[in-house]
Structures are given as C-alpha cells and as structure tokens.
C-alpha cells in the first residue's frame, strides 16, 4: 500500500514510518522538511496521488489558542480536501481521550475541530483517541515547577508509551476504516502527580511534586477522570518501569 504519514518525522510518526516500511509498504514521509506542507498545500497533491492510507500525526508548531485552532483547521481542511480528491481509502488521525469534554482548553477545542473536519470530509476514517504519552512527563513536571516544587494535578492519569501508540497506529493503518473512534491508553492508572513524582525520582530530580488540583493542563482545570478513558480502551504493553528502562536513567 501507499501510505502517507503527515508528521512522519515526529515522535510517533518516525516510529510508524519505520514499522510500515519494515512491513514493505511504500511510505511517504510528510513534513515541511520533506516538501509536504499541509498549511501551504505544497507537495500535498503530488504526495496524495495513488495513496491508500493517510495518517495525520502532525502537531501545531505553536500552542497559543488561536494558532492551534488555525493550524488544525487549515491543515485538516487542506489535507482532507486533497485526500478526498485523490480517492484515499482510509484517513487516520491521533486525537486525545475526552478531547470534546475538556472545553476549557483551546488545544482540546482545536483537536475537536480537526476530528469534525475528518468526520465531515467524506473520506473513510478512523480517529485514535489516545491518553497522554509517557514522554510528556518531563514537560508536565517543568510546566508545574514553582521553585523547588513541581505542582501537578491530582487527576487520574493513564499515560501510554509513544512506542505503543505507534504500534496501534500501524495496526489501524493496516485495518479497514471504522468511521469512528478507538481509544488507546497505557497499562497503568494512577494520578498525574504520582506519575510525575515517580519520573522525577527515577531521574534523580530533586524537585518535589505537589499534588495540586488547581494546576491547569493545557489551559484546563482537570476533573478526576478528565484524562482517562471512560469506556473500553485498548491498552499498550509498556508500563512505566519498562518505559523508564528504555530511557537510560541519568546518574
């Protein structure tokens, strides 16, 4: 199959590209660096020619509310219009678990817009709603840092390893479109503060984690189950410890 991976140079994208190529598929890496730009439309039509599956893993270069909305709307419209014209048979995008319920967050609202563009495009699709990646833990710790402490929400958290995400994405890419959602999550569930605490501990980071429910995540205050799947979700195989081993702990 010919598969275009938009954001194919990123954290998940590069893993998905590698997996699909290993399986012998013709994979096009879509990224402004490879001459495929979903915002300007550059290279898009040519890349889409004869494409069977499009996987959209691109993320906004800026997290400002307006910029995020503009990015996902423009990129989504351009990408889906090109995909429809090229007769793409399956469009796959990765979104966020409960994105439509966390309306305080501009980022989440933009992801919902992206989902809606896909749903209304007329291209067969599968939207993968994922929990947060374990790779985000460092960033969460940093954004909550106040002096020697890191304030982190005490909401429930079920992070998934990027590797697991790429496995799921690859699986979906090789399956028929379901024209709906699937949810994926990590194998362990605890509070966000607890995960960050464990991470800092393993990293020998001296910062102390404070569980603080007034800490905002992407602009939103989190309720208890805001970030975890409420129904059945596919679970990745890599837990925190296994993932940590793969990171190479600093001494």
């Amino acid at each position, binding site marked *: 199959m010919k598969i275009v991976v938009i954001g194919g140079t990123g954290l998940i994208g590069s893993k998905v590209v590698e997996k699909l*190529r290993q399986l012998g598929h*013709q*994979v*096009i*890496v*879509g990224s402004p*660096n*490879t*001459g*495929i730009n979903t915002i*300007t*439309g*550059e*290279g*898009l*039509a*040519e*890349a*889409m*020619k004869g494409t069977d599956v499009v996987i959209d893993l691109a993320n906004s270069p800026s997290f400002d509310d307006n910029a995020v909305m503009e990015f996902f709307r*423009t990129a989504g*419209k*351009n990408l889906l*219009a*090109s995909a*429809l*014209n*090229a*007769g793409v048979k399956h469009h796959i995008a990765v979104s966020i678990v409960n994105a439509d319920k966390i309306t305080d967050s501009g980022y989440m609202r933009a992801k919902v817009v992206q989902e809606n563009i896909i749903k209304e495009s007329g291209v067969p699709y599968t939207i993968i709603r994922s929990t947060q990646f374990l790779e985000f833990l460092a960033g969460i710790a940093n954004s909550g840092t106040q002096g020697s402490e890191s304030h982190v929400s005490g909401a429930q958290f079920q992070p998934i390893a990027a590797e697991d995400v790429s496995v799921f994405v690859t699986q979906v890419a090789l399956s028929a479109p379901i024209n709906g959602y699937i949810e994926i999550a990590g194998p362990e569930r605890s509070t966000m503060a607890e995960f960050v605490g464990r991470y800092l501990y393993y990293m020998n980071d001296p910062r102390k984690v404070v569980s603080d429910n007034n800490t905002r995540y992407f602009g939103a205050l989190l309720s208890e189950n805001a970030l975890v799947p409420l129904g059945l979700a596919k679970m990745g195989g890599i837990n925190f410890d296994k993932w940590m081993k793969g990171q190479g702990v600093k001494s």
Partner: protein
Amino acid sequence: MRDQLHSATTRNERDILLDLGQDLTRVREKNDLIILLTERMKTYFYFCHASVSLIGQQDNTFSAFLLDNTYSPLLKYPGYAKLVSAKYPLTGILQAVLQAEGPILYLLEEIVNQPMIPAFVPVYYEAGIKEVLIMKLMNEEKPIGFFHVYSDTAGSFSTEFRNLVQFIAPQISSAISNIIKNDEILKEKNEKSFLLDFSEGIATVKTKSELEDAVSNALRKLTGLRGYIILKINDDGLTMGSFLYDTSVPIPDMDELNALVSTSFPINDGLQSRVLDSQIPLLFSVELEIRRGIQSAYLHYWKKLGFKTMVGLRLRHGDTNLGILWLNIEEINIELLQGVCSQISIAMANIIANEQVIVKQAEQTFLLDFSCEIARVRTKADLEAAIFKVLDKILHAKVAMITVIADDGYNLVRFMFDETLFDHAREVYDEMLGKQFTIEETYNAKVLSSEDGLVFNVEEEAMSGNALAALWQTTGLKNAYSLPLRVGDRNIGTIWLLANHLSQLILRGIAAQISIAIANIQANEKLQNYKKQLENENLYLKEQISNIYNFSEIIGNGAEMQEVYRLMSLVANSATTVLVLGETGTGKELIARAIHNASPRKDKLMVKVNCAALPANLVESELFGHERGAFTGAIDRRIGKFELANQSTLFLDEVGELPLEAQSKLLRAIQEREVERVGGKQIIKVDVRLVVATNRNLEEEVKAGRFRADLYFRLNVFPIMLPPLRNRTEDIEALTLFFVEKYSRNSGRIIRKVTPGVIQQLRSYSWPGNVRELEHLIERSVLLTTNSTLQEVYIPTNHLLSERSENKEQFNRTLDEVDRTYIIGVLKRCRGKISGHGGAAAILDIPGNTLHSKMRKLGVTKTDYFSKE
C-alpha cells in the same frame, strides 16, 4: 617501492583533486559536472561511465540525478527513459553502501539475481557492465545520494581509484548541493519573472477580452498546461457560469461547447464547492470524480477532451469568492498558481466592478432619457406613448397596469393598462373592467405599504391561482414588479411592470418619473378646471360691468332714506333674506349692493339675476345650472347662479316676475340650501344669501295666484321699503346736482350751476319714474344746455305713466275714472270673468247685467283687462 607508489599515488591524487577543484568551480550546468569528472578521472584510470543519484527524503528511495549522456552503454536501450525517471527503494546493496564509510564494489554477476535489486542493474549486466563502485554522498551529516562508477572490465577499480572516489565524494556532494540550490534559485527566478510578466500583462486589463488575451498569453508559458477555463459566480450567488476559456483547445463538438458556455452550474454540484472552500489548489482526477457520481456536464466534457487531471483554484478578492480557475495540468506549483490566481482575481474584480459601473451608467442614461420623455408629458396619451416608447422598446418591459388612488383616497382607478395583454383573454378583460380595486385589496395594500415595491414570480403567482398572473404569463416575461407611485410621502397609485429583470435603480427611477408625470397630469386637469371656472366668472363679470349702475353711493339724507339706512345696517351683517320693495327706478339694486358690501360676504362678487329679463324656459337653467345634454342646446355643462353665488350674495331682481315652476325650485333652494342642476343627479350644497327685489305688491300677487304664498313668506323676512322720489323732495336738489355733475363730465360740458327755478320745477313734479326718471331727465337737459348754467329742464307734460301707478291716489280724477280703473282691476283678477261664481260682478256685489252696462258706459273693453301690465 610501496612508499614510492604511495607517494606517486598521493601526488596523483593531489593533482587530480586540485584539477577537479578547479573544474568544479567552473561547473554551471549539472551535466557538465559528470562529464568533467568522467574525463578528468579517465586520464588516470579506466572505467566506462559514472553517474550520480539522489535520495528522496519523502519515501526513502533514490533516483537518477546526473547522467552520462556520452558514454553510458544504455543510451540506445528502449527503456532508458523509464529507468532514468524511476525511483528505487533503498534496500539491499544500497543499505550496505549507506553503512560503509568508503565506496563499495559490487560485481554485477553476483548481485544481479538478488531479490529487490534495482531494475537498472540487470540492464547494465546485459549491456556488458561487470563492476560498479558506489559511494554515498553526504551533506550536513545526512546521506543525500550516491556516486556510481561503472566498468566493463573486471578489476578496474584499484585501491587508488577507490581512495580517489572517497576523497572526491565531499566535493561532489557540495557541487551537487550547489546545483540543487542553483536549480531552486533559477526556478524561483523563473516563477518570479513569469508572475512579473503576467502582472504587467494584466495590469492594463480593462475588459474581459483583454483579460482573456493576458491569461492565454501567460498560461501558455506554463509547462504541461493543456487547457483552462475560468468560471464566475453568478449574481444569484448559487450558480457559476463560464467567464472565459482556452480557445486553443480543440473542440470535439461545437454545440456541446456552446451549451456548456451558456449553462449555469450549481455551486454545490459536489465539485465546485470543494474548490471554493479550499485555500489551496486542489488536484482532481476526472475519472475519479465521475466515478464518485458527479453529474456536472463540464466534467464529462473534460473527459471527452481527454483531460485526466484538473487543478481547481478559487479566485478570491478580499473575502469574496469570485469564481474558479480550472487548469488541465498534472502537477501543482502552489506559489506560482496562487500568484496567477491572485492576479486574475484582481483583474476579474475590476472587470466586474467596471461592468457594474457601465450597467449603472447605462441605467442612469436610460433614466435621464426617460425623464426627458416624461418631462414633455402633459396628457395621459402622451404618457402612454412615452412609456411604450421607452419601456417596451428599450427595456423589454411591459406596463401591465397603472392605478391611481381616487380623490376619496380609497378606491383605485385604472389609469392605464396594456390592452395587448388581453388580446387573447377578453373575458378576463371584461371581468377586470367590472372589478373595482381599492387600496385595501391584498396585492395593492402590500405594494402600497412597501418601501421599494415587490417582485412576484409570474410562474409562482400563476400556480397560486392569481388570475392576472395567467395573463402575465402570456408575455413570457418572468417577473412582475409592482411599485407604489409616490409624490413626496403621499401614495398616489401603483404601477405593475412585467420584465425578466429590472434593477432596483431602474425600478425606483421609473416609478418616481411616472409618479411625477401622473401628478402633473392630475394637476394639469385641475388647472384646466380652475381655468374654465375663472373664464366663466370673468365672462359673467364682463356682462355685469355693463349693467351696473355707476354710482357708488346712495344720495339722499331725507327722513325716509334715514329709515332705509337704519334697516340696512341692522340686517347687513346677518345672512337673512332681504326683500327690497319700491317703485320702479327707486334704486333697489343699489340697496342690494350696499347690503352685500356691508356684509361679511363683501369679498366675493354679488351675483345678480334679473328674473324679468329671462325667458321662462331658461330661468331654471340660469339659476341652477344644467348638465351637458340636459336639454336641446345644452351643449356644455353650465354652472347656475346659485352655485356661482356660493358663499356670496345672490340678488334676484324683479322676483315677482318669476314663473311658478321656478318659484317652487327657488323655495326648495332657500329651504334646503342645496340645488340640483337641470338634468343632473348630483345635489350641490350652497351657502347663499338672498336679496330679492320687486316693484310689485307681492301680497297682491299672492292673492292673484301668481306668486306662491310659501315663497312670499320665505322672502318677506326683512322687507325694506324704498320711498318714491316724490316723497323725498328734500333729496331732489342733491340728486340733481349729482347727475348734473356726472353727465356734464360725461358730455364734456362745464355746468356749474342749476337755477333755483329748475330745482323748484323738479320738486313739484310727481316723478312716476323716480330717481331713474330724474337721472334721464337731467341727462337730456344737460345735453340740451348750451352754457354753464342749467336753466331749463324738460319735464314731460303727458302723465301717462302716473296713471299706471294704480295704487297711488292723487285725488285728481273724476269718479268715472275711478270706477273704470277699479272695474278693470277686478276683471283682471277674475281673469275676465264677469258674472257667475268667482266673477267680477260677485266681487263688486252688483248684478252681472249692471256690470255689463257700466262697462259699456265707461268704455271698458276686453283689451283693457286682458292686457298685460
């Protein structure tokens, strides 16, 4: 030996590197590089040819970049072009090259049968190539491509050769990077100059045909373009139509093309909307869209033309979509196409704006012309002609109907309508004629209350059962436009126009002009009426002037006149009917005028009717007017004196002479205060003050049955009795002097004095003709006087007239004379009947025979008592 060899090699390598360095700086064309490399290296080593391939970053493949078009053994291979353009996966042998630091040598016979070997390897093998040396080319620590060297002799690639290749690889890499960058810069430059040329071409564009030329000149330069079309969004905002298209495309079917060009395609046809919604150019596969089920005819036409892929770009000016540019081209150069589109969009927006200006100008010119036509209009016929000339001939619009609100402000009167509409529908026509429209009728009410009128779709109206719409349909025109006709804020009517399309400007203009024209016509009609009325009044005034006594004041201060003045001043201010009595010549009209002039009605003209001067059969028409055709000779409508005297005073002189029929009408007019024209149905309210005069004794007339008693009582509300001149001898001198002055002035004589003898003479005369007799006597005397003193007056000696004043006892007659006069009087009253019941003998209480003999004795004959006095 080894050292020597090594040093030789190093020297060789150094020389080669130096030469190559110089060569590479001279490289301008990319294939020069491979030629230079090959020729320079061949001076030291044997090999067949070399090439450079590049790695595609998107899909992990590599493909040919620099080819040796001189020494390659495949130049004549039929599949060469395909090999050159193909992309090869980075597998197997190439992965090994990527892992290695230096070049890797492959023997073709060893690898040719390996799985996933690039397709060109077996071809080279077949062509006799034995070995290939492949070296990866790196840029910024990333592999960007490969340097391939081929040989048909085994063992060609010595260690020195391999070292050399490894040494020169970075130089080749940087040369290639430069070439790529140069290519990009060149491409960008070309695009810029293309756009600049296009921009220059398009900057001067004023009209659609100029745009057509500019677009076709520019797009012709686009490589790979086989055809284009620009569609423009129609005014309805829902459909698109052809704006301009590539005339160089061969046309398979002219009829089909013409049909396409004149068709409007809905924007939401599943294709156009996608282009309009997209910020970026979209590539469409014609086949795929047809398979998707899109029906639009142009898509199928493209297929017929052999167009496989179309690029659609929206043409947008500001935030408004103008249309779509469709290009039959295989690939999208975003920047270039978007540049083209923005230029076309601006030109198109300008042309559209320009066209709108032209249309508006034409409309304004039209309205100006129409206004000129309308300005000349004075009558309805003129208006009809003007409307027909302009609307029908120029706008292809029909005036179905114009209605005008009647004076009552409620009914709508058909002012004008197009009878040709009803040529095939006489029934509806008759029905419509019989129907009275009002401002409350649904359609008209809606129109009148609207700001700028309404538009009705003829077809829809006809479907909904509007009878008129069925008529409208016969014209084949699509819309009915209805507008209120207004002058200022006042509705004066409605206009119904039929047309396919009329702009608001035109409609408002037409309605305004026609409103003014109708208002003018109405004003003109009113003006004509007023004019006629004024002419009537003027005519009457002229008549009057010749009749009016010339004195402006009443002469005389005697006791009896003082009493008259007192009565006049009492009654003048009221509207009471005044009855002026007095002998002939006592100045009854003068008194009537004085009463009028002292009344609140003095600003209006007093109207005078001399009842005695009119033939009996014309009295009525004179007093009450008549309608046209009321009787033979009534060729025109005539306004009666009663109407004429509305809010003024009507003076009926000699009212005693009025025929009996007229009396009853007069009575009614006085009682009801309204009159009816002869032959008319309309009742006209009047407010008239009556002053009537007679020299007859009305009581006697009533007794004689010649005057209606009820009328008499109506008239005798405020009688004023004018004294005869003989009773006011004290005024004779003043009157004489007044007349002497008047007539001496008229006759040009200077008479300053009247002798006392003359005055005495005048005083002693009995004056049966009263003041009028005095006036005429003085007039005659003045004419007969030769000097400045009036010494003599010619008083008539024959007193015939005095005899006729029967009521005045002068005690100078014989008994027989008295008897005779009395008998004649009684006989007259009895209409000549002598004896019997109601006969004169009964009244005189003598036998009939006695009366007969008395009559014979006194000489009373039939002529005496039947004579009219």
